């Protein structure tokens, strides 16, 4: 029997457990398709963009890739992905959440399929809040949030535990503040897109968030740490009162056992701003590369990973949310009351623009946000400095947009 090999790139979706999570799916696939071997590689997020770009430029590399939903359209624009023309009808029947399906379309063609979703959830310590005399109402408005953080700081706690420079999700942290201030990342005038994250409303939201961090809401040293360390400290120790991260804690058995999760923790949305309340919807898609020479076999791998059984199993293992509505309901039932609450947050969900060059623009933004965080780390943050960085980022993004006009 001739064995065909499909090369698969995924990212460390489950930290140390990433390898075992994908190995389970590969094992299940092999039982059904013994003539197809999957060679999986776990590519760290911080290296993923560069490696994808090299693969696309050289037109050689993996056959199936996990690709962040904000990078999908850019990778397709640069010729890296194969279109799924003709497969649309099947996928439409799957009831994907529309916000995530839209990240898979480019020039009206489907170039990827949603694999899982992630939303940024606010976790808060009920026990610490009780001690300080606070409740979930601090998340009602910006003002109540600022005041709540101040009380927590005065009581000797670090109000917010959030990863900084080493976190690949920097955009996800700032997006809800831009949106709730009435701002946006891109605006379109006369059919032409331009950067708008340096406009007045966006800057208002950004300054609220960054000045809160700079003044008292975080421990500046946390900015040097990675996500895993911050999360561990929040859930295992009594230092941080609020933590913003994805949904993985809800699926982590060690947390629910070791920390008496539902007794001490609850989840909430970020506070309501002048223009509303938003939760960032991220996630990853699966795609077949344009340079794959085993497309039929790659399609089988894709179909397997997107099957209901595999989706439920994998998303539970990595702590993400399935992208399809029926599977989301199952996920919520399995997680429990907190899971139902998190699913209800999707109503306020919003994604980043599905623009051809969003992936490239994101790299620009991340570079400048990292600089702002450095200022916070060093205690030299000012609104002027922040506006300068955003202005430079805006110019660079506009240069990108003009390049394809």
């Amino acid at each position, binding site marked *: 029997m001739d064995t065909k090999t499909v090369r698969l790139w995924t990212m460390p979706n489950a930290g140390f457990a990433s390898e075992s999570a994908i190995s389970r799916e590969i094992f299940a696939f092999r039982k059904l398709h013994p003539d197809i071997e999957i060679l999986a590689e*776990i590519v760290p997020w911080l290296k993923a963009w560069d490696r994808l770009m090299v693969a696309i430029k050289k037109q050689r590399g993996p056959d199936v890739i996990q690709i962040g939903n904000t990078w999908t359209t850019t990778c397709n624009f*640069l010729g890296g992905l194969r279109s799924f023309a003709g497969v649309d009808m099947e996928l439409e029947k799957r009831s994907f959440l529309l916000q995530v399906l839209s990240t898979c379309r480019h020039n009206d063609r489907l170039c990827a399929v949603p694999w899982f979703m992630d939303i940024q959830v606010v976790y808060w310590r009920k026990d610490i809040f009780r001690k300080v005399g606070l409740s979930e109402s601090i998340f009602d408005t910006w003002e109540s949030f600022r005041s709540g953080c101040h009380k927590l700081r005065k009581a000797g706690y670090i109000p917010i535990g959030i990863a900084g420079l*080493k976190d690949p999700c920097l955009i996800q942290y700032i997006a809800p503040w831009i949106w709730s201030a009435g701002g946006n990342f891109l605006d379109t005038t006369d059919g032409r897109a331009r950067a708008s994250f340096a406009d007045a409303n966006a800057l208002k939201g950004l300054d609220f968030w960054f000045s809160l961090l700079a003044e008292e809401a975080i421990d500046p040293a946390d900015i040097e740490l990675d996500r895993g360390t911050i999360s561990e400290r929040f859930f295992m120790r009594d230092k941080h009162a609020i933590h913003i991260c994805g949904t993985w804690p809800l699926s982590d058995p060690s947390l629910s056992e070791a920390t008496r999760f539902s007794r001490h923790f609850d989840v909430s949305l970020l506070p309501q701003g002048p223009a509303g309340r938003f939760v960032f919807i991220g996630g990853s898609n699966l795609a077949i590369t344009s340079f794959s020479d085993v497309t039929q076999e790659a399609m089988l791998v894709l179909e397997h990973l997107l099957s209901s059984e595999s989706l439920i199993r994998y998303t539970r293992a990595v702590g993400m949310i399935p992208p399809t509505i029926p599977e989301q309901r199952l996920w919520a039932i399995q997680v429990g009351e907190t899971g139902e609450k998190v699913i209800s947050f999707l109503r306020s969900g919003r994604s980043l623009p599905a623009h051809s060059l969003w992936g490239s623009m994101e790299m620009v933004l991340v570079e400048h946000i990292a600089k702002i965080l450095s200022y916070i780390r060093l205690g030299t943050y000012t609104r002027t400095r922040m506006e300068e960085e955003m202005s430079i980022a805006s110019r660079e993004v506009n240069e990108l947009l003009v390049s394809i006009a």
Partner: protein
Amino acid sequence: MVAATFRLRRLKPAATSAVLCWHKSRCNLGASGTSHLENLYQVSRLFLSLQSDIALALRKSLTFIVEVLNFDRTAVFFYDADSNTLSLQQILEQRGVLEGETVYSLNRDTNVPPVKCLIENMDCLVLPEPEYCICVPLKLHGEIMGVLSADNALGHRSISDEQTGKLRDYAGEIAVGLWNARLYAREQEEIKKLLAFSEITQAIISSMNLERILRTVMHALITQIGFDRARLYMVDKEAKVLKGRYSAMIGQGLKELDESVPLKSGISQLVDMVLENKQEYFDGGHIYRTLLAGRDTVGIVQADNIFSRQQITRTDLKTLGTFANLASVAIFNAQLFEEVQRLSITDGLTGLYVYRYFSTRLSEEITRARRFGGSVTMILFDVDHFKEINDRHGHPFGDKVLKEVSTQVKKCIREVDSPARYGGDEFAIILPGASCDMARRIAERIQTAISSPGIKSDSVIEKITISIGIAAFPEDADTDKELIKKADTALYAAKRLGRARIVTWSEDLE
């Protein structure tokens, strides 16, 4: 320099051969009873056998180290000299292996043991509680490749002298393995690059077609060097502009670049480079490189990584320079070739085709017409009383007349027509696809254009007339020779009938 706050352990080969298995073994190496030297040999063999997969070799080595030396956790960091950073490659602990996500800058503010180890230039850094960790640089031949670290922080156990000594030995083996693996990887990469380079070079230097050379260079910039985007401009000295020729982008292929930039100082970096004869300019994000033909700047290439945001490396700049030099030589040759071609097929005085080329063209057009259908019409004419004009006004005036006739001919014919200087004062024009009527109309235009103004010689204006004969394939002739003969017959008839007229061939003329 040794920092006073840290204990420095000197290299001391371990004396014992005991091996401890920490938890469920994930590899077969380090079996109980093997000596330390045998274990070191196993590690070095890992790198030899997995030369093309450093990540797997590292993973197996880390697993081995944890199991044999009874550490809670171990990790490998790679050092990047360009960015002066240490990046975590792999970390192995109880819960499994994680590929690296963390990058540390090498400065004194970064309070992380592996960084401290390199900054303080230590052979080995051992920290007591609460870190319980040891860091050993991975270095060979004076070059630092990274750091191997291990700790007992989870179990709150101090690091023993034996663990220290053995870890340092393993670090040595890993350093050698990494060094060789990198050499191997670099060698493979160089071989690939050289092969690709050789292919491109062949394509460039074997072509005398300028457009093909330019397209090959553009293609190489995207696929070989790996730029996101490149644009090529050529200098148009007559129009005094930089004319866009091609643009290439990943995923979008090669397109014609419809852009024109005046060659005036201060407009853009592109133009300034050409005017100032600069060879190369790099502003960190965009690279500009001129193309020379001999000593003249004939073009300029601009390239960037605007989409991928990847850094343009020194290697990229060097490779671009090499391609630009190659392309310059090829462009120079192609332009020379074009000039030689032009000279060999055109008449020096009039700029029209020479007889030899005219014959070839006629034959080609008739073959094409015979194959695909259609007609080929020929106009043959000469200057009336040319010998007398020469005798009266001198040969220089005669040359002037011939030049003026040529100029007017070029203005009156279509783009697809081929005018030639057939003989001394004889001219021929091939008109593909034209009927006799159309040829006649063109002939009348030429006649009017030549005769109306006259040509000045000192204070005299000499009126110039021409006699014209027309014949067509396939109506009048079956072959090129026959066509010429019939057109000549028609011309002769025009002369006999009084000159300064047009005659189309017919049976009666025979």
